[in-house]
């Protein structure tokens, strides 16, 4: 029985090695790119039930792992507004029109303030900077 077992084990090992060798040769001879080109992806996808796949996904768990804050901070909103029609959409909103009018009013007022301040400083022969900010705001609000 031992001899029969040894012969069987040896033959199984031989068969396994031979199979591995054959598989290596087959894989080496295969052109994966050509094979991939022959695959009909559309047909493959048509057989896939995406709804069933999506239903199995727990989006709450998925989203809880995403750091949305970090994601948003990485978004360059200025660039998006400048490069897309988002700016036009915002510009057309009624709130924006009112905001634009207020902006014009404020910009004119600030400009006039600066001019008046400039004239007064020249009249009083006062040097140094123009409109200063309160001490505690210099490092906070004014700095933004």
């Amino acid at each position: 029985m031992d001899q029969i077992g040894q012969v069987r084990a040896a033959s199984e090992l031989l068969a396994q090695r031979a199979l591995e060798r054959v598989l290596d040769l087959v894989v080496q001879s295969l052109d994966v790119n050509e094979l991939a080109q022959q695959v009909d992806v559309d047909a493959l996808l048509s057989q896939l039930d995406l709804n069933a796949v999506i239903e199995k996904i727990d989006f709450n768990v998925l989203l809880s792992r995403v750091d949305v804050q970090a994601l948003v901070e990485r978004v360059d909103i200025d660039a998006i507004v400048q490069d897309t029609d988002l700016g036009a959409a915002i510009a057309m909103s009624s709130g924006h029109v009112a905001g634009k009018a207020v902006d014009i009013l404020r910009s004119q007022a600030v400009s006039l303030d600066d001019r008046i301040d400039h004239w007064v400083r020249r009249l009083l022969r006062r040097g140094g900077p123009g409109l200063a900010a309160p001490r505690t705001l210099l490092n906070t609000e004014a700095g933004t």
Partner: protein
Amino acid sequence: MINDAGRADWIGALGRHAGAASRFAAYAVDVIISWAAFTLGLAGISFAITIVTGRSVSWHLGASIAVGVVFAVWELTYFGYCWAAAGRTPGMALLGLRVVRADGADLDPWHGVLRALAFPLSILLCGLGFIGILAQREHRALHDLIAGTAVIYSWDARAARLRCLTRTATRPRTDLDGAS
């Protein structure tokens, strides 16, 4: 046009002491609003008296001392309440101004009321109390000095900057090219 509203230069003034033009414009808006509210109130009271008594009553400023006194009290209440509650009046909110303590801290109700009480002094001294807005380095009027307050530019800089960006984005390309 002194300044192009499409440019964001003015947004950088946030937190600085507000100048004379902004403050005068805000005050003018407040006078119009408070006067309109007072006139509407008087008209409402007159209408109510006419309905109840059948007599026609017509009040207007200058008609009697009492109306003048009530108007003065109303103005004090208007400015005092706005400064004490929010640190700004509707006119100041429109022009993007806010009253703060002299060191930049938030205004507390007491100093808001004190500023409103001291405000008439600047007017009663033939307007000399307002000279500080022009001449003083921190643009503080007499009532500011008494109440220990200052007026600064205060607006939503992020929203204003976004509006400026959208204007730049929606401006015709030729205009942008011409500007550069």
